[in-house]
């Protein structure tokens, strides 16, 4: 076989453990990594390597654990919340005057709110909303971002320009304002919130994916794959996507925090989740009137938001270090 | 007798890192006199650059630390100086030219200003005076149209021109010593020769001593008066340029010479690279640091660190067998040469 073809075949076979991974392995890292590779023997994938590095980052691990706890509480809430703490949504008007604004106690670890509902239970239910919005909206953004980024990066030229101008248009608006407008169109509630935040979040992912594509497009192994007859989509999925995945994962994790903040802001302004569904932002809105008399009402949801968002930020930081990503926007 | 301009005396510079102690410079000694050129040769990680940076005190103190030895400039210890004192030396009496001119110049300042900076700083010139002198210097280093070029930004110049600017900047205050750290490595081959020629010419004109650091023996062959070969932070051979090329003592030096296309003579004309990789400076091999790659290594090389000894006048090496009868480079690649008379018998039979 002539030299070039042989190289091409090698390049394609390398593709599944792409050059980037090889380079990553070669640049090594601490001797401990070398020990790990010596003991694990066989192939070290990028992911196992990254997982190893992540597990050494204490903050990121703590964040992950915290999120797992919150997640479990949130998912299982319907099973135990009402039984232990009373209905977080429903107001029992007969008892409300006696049960409102109770101080923290065993039966109400964080006290009750202005309607006699247990604050802790409401926070947990709020977590359900926040995590749902976070995950679903981010998912929508990622899907949209991948599609637009793919089109833009792969086809280049006029198409690229158009898509880039489109991102500029979206980014020209004040973010919250546009979200509010979109929601006003669609009506309030969970669905519109998910859709609005999701739709607004595609721009950065598209840009990140596009730049990954651009930097990889000219690589040898893509040329080789094309020479062997692979279709565009196949090249995109098998060769470009795995490389581009790392920065997208990092960005998605960090933006999850931002999504939660946005949802809280929208609910606070009254355009997001509607009562009686407890969303953290909603709870803050309701707490506004009681800042003077019962500040606890606005402290707890605030702490919930801060800790959850911070966890995502720290996790994202840790992922970025572990995956050795430099995201330049 | 000329006063020794620069004396490096058993200098030891270690880096204290999370993964261990890096013995970057482990007992280096040499002397430099006015107007001389010393070539310091070695692979990446041999400690040749770190030695130079240590002389200039440019190594950040954590994690680096001078753990032993001294550097004396005109009798005064550079290591013992405080910040203010060493700053008066830098860019003034001892100046440095770095490897990559692309990144070694500040991209947001015009080159004229960058050349003028050491003039204003050390000679107290006014901006106008320094600017005029900068134009002169640009002319000196062979940059055409210096009056207009002086207002250029680094990115507007080619690699070779940038390196000339670096040289102009270093020579601005007429230093006693110019340290050139791989000045040509990042440049095209044709430009390399020009830059080296320029440095030689300027040296003749200005009388400065030069420390020329490189991994390429070919570069020093022309310019150097003396050569020091370094390996794993330690000196392995030192001598005049003739001594080193015609009668090298150390197997590593043989390897370096053999790696030069001009010198690798063997009927088939094949090149003879030194096998293996430079050692980790955290886990330096026991005994002679070169022993894992030395075709002539014996048991003693595993266990005992060879002392650096003068073997013929000031020509010395750090090898247990240096200078022994028959332990010479020969004409062809290492694998065909016996280490000692004994081994020669073994090979012959």
């Amino acid at each position, binding site marked *: 076989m002539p030299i070039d073809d042989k190289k091409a075949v090698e390049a394609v076979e390398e593709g599944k453990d792409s050059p980037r991974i090889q380079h990553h392995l070669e640049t090594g890292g601490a001797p401990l990594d070398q020990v790990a590779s010596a003991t694990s023997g066989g192939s070290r994938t990028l992911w196992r390597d990254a997982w190893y590095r992540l597990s050494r980052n204490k903050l990121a691990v703590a964040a992950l654990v915290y999120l797992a706890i919150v997640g479990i509480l949130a998912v299982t809430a319907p099973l135990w919340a009402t039984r232990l703490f009373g209905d977080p949504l429903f107001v029992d008007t007969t008892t409300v005057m006696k049960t409102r604004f109770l101080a923290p106690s065993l039966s109400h670890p964080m006290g009750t709110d202005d309607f006699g509902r247990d604050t802790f239970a409401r926070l947990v239910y709020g977590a359900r909303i926040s995590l749902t919005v976070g995950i679903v909206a981010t998912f929508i953004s990622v899907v949209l971002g991948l599609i637009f980024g793919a089109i833009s990066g792969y086809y280049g030229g006029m198409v690229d320009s158009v898509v880039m*101008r*489109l991102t*500029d248009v979206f980014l020209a608006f004040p973010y919250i304002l546009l979200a509010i407008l979109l929601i006003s*169109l669609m009506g309030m509630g969970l669905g519109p919130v998910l859709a609005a935040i999701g739709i607004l979040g595609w721009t950065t992912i598209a840009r990140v994916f596009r730049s990954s594509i651009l930097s990889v497009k000219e690589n040898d192994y893509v040329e080789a794959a094309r020479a062997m007859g692979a279709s565009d989509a196949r090249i995109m999925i098998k060769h470009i996507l795995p490389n581009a995945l790392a920065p997208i994962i990092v960005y998605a994790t960090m933006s999850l925090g931002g999504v939660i903040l946005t949802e809280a802001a929208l609910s606070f302004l009254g355009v997001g989740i509607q009562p009686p569904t407890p969303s953290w932002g909603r709870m*803050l809105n309701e707490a506004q009137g009681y800042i003077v008399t019962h500040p606890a009402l606005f402290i707890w949801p605030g702490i919930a*938001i801060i800790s959850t968002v911070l966890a995502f930020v720290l996790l994202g930081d840790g992922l970025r270090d572990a995956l050795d990503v430099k995201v330049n926007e | 007798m000329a006063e020794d301009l620069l004396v490096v005396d058993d200098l030891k510079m270690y880096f204290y890192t999370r993964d261990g102690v890096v013995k970057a410079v482990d007992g280096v000694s040499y002397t430099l006199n006015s107007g001389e050129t010393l070539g310091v040769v070695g692979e990446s990680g041999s400690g040749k650059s770190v030695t130079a940076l240590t002389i200039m005190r440019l190594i950040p103190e954590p994690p680096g630390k001078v753990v032993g030895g001294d550097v004396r400039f005109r009798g005064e210890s550079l290591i013992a100086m405080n910040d203010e004192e060493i*700053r008066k030396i830098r860019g003034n009496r001892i100046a440095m030219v770095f490897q990559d001119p692309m990144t070694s110049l500040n991209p947001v300042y015009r080159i004229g200003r960058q050349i003028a900076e050491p003039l204003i700083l050390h000679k107290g010139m006014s901006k106008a005076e320094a600017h005029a002198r900068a134009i002169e210097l640009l002319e000196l280093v062979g940059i055409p149209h210096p009056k207009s070029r002086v207002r250029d930004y680094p990115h507007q110049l080619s690699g070779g021109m940038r390196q000339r600017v670096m040289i102009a900047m270093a020579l601005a205050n007429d230093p006693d010593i110019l340290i050139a750290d791989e000045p040509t490595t990042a440049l095209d081959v044709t430009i390399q020769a020009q830059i080296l020629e320029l440095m030689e010419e300027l040296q003749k004109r200005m009388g400065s001593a030069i420390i020329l650091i490189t991994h390429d023996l070919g570069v020093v062959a022309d310019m150097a008066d003396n050569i020091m070969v370094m390996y794993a932070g330690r000196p392995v051979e030192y001598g005049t340029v003739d001594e080193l090329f015609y009668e090298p003592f150390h197997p590593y030096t043989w390897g370096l010479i053999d790696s030069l296309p001009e010198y690798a003579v063997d009927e088939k004309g094949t090149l003879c690279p030194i096998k293996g990789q430079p050692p980790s400076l955290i886990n330096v091999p026991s005994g002679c640091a070169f022993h894992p790659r030395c075709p002539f290594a014996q048991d003693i090389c595993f266990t005992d660190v060879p002392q650096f000894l003068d073997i013929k006048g000031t020509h010395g090496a750090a090898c247990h067998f240096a200078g022994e009868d028959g332990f010479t480079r020969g004409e062809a690649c290492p694998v065909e040469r016996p280490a000692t008379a004994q081994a020669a018998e073994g090979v012959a039979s």
Partner: protein
Amino acid sequence: MLQYIARRVLQFIPVFLGVTLLLFVLTRVIPGDPVAMMSGQRTQSPVILQQMRHAYGLDLPLPQQYVKYLGDILRGDFGTSITTGRPVRDIFVEKYPYTVRLALAAIIIEIIVGIGAGVISAVKQYSFWDVMVTLSTSLLVSLPVFWLGMLLQMFFGIWLKQWTHGQFYLPMSGAGGPGAPFPSWVYLILPAITLASVSTAYAARIQRSQLLEVSGSDYIRTARAKGLSDTAVLWRHSMKNALIPVVTFIALDLGAMMSGAILTETVFNWPGIGYTIFLSINKRDWPVVIGATIIVTFVFLVINLLVDISYAFLDPRIRYGSSQER
């Protein structure tokens, strides 16, 4: 460089058109008959409604409506408020100065505190200060801005008043004015701090990481080798390079703040354009919403454009094009 500027300006036009188009589509998609909304609660006879429709050009085909709409905008006519009957332009002129004042105050805080903290943090890496800055910036970035606002209100507006028995406290609502207990600038304090907080955290982080990155550069080593003192190296060489992205960030931030900080303004009842837009949404006063949004977006785009152009001035590599032999 002229090429660069020309390109940027050319990019501006389609983006602005895209913005107007998007908003135009939104106005036509919003449920409800605009004319019926405009006449408010009173029901009108169909004939009058039809006349109104004609007067507003609502019976024209959509593309023509868009052109008319664009024409109006370019002439400075942004519609009329449904609730107050005032031209949107007048409302904007009245409210916008408040937003600008708030934005400027916040930016000043951001510049001083953000750059300062970032520089100190980088210069004294790993020190107590650095750790504090890193922790607090991580925290601030996770904070809901409006929550911080409420927190400040609680501390400085209410508790401080209680602790000092009504002697000393900061106002937490509105912007003051004639007859108010405090001079106008005092009312700026809490909202400005709130608005600046998250951005300052970002600015400090960026400044820190930029400075650290630059400090490791070869040209910094060269500067040291020339005998410059650490201070001189920092301010003359490192900062000049490290500041460029930071300044860009802050300028873009200014642009964002000038778009009306809805959250901060709402929490503090600050009568800026953000608060106005928000109230108008609640009142379904769409002409005000859309009109104000267009102006605000235009300002944002212009500021972005100016930032891009000034970037060309700041970075000689763009100003004088890529390397070339002459």
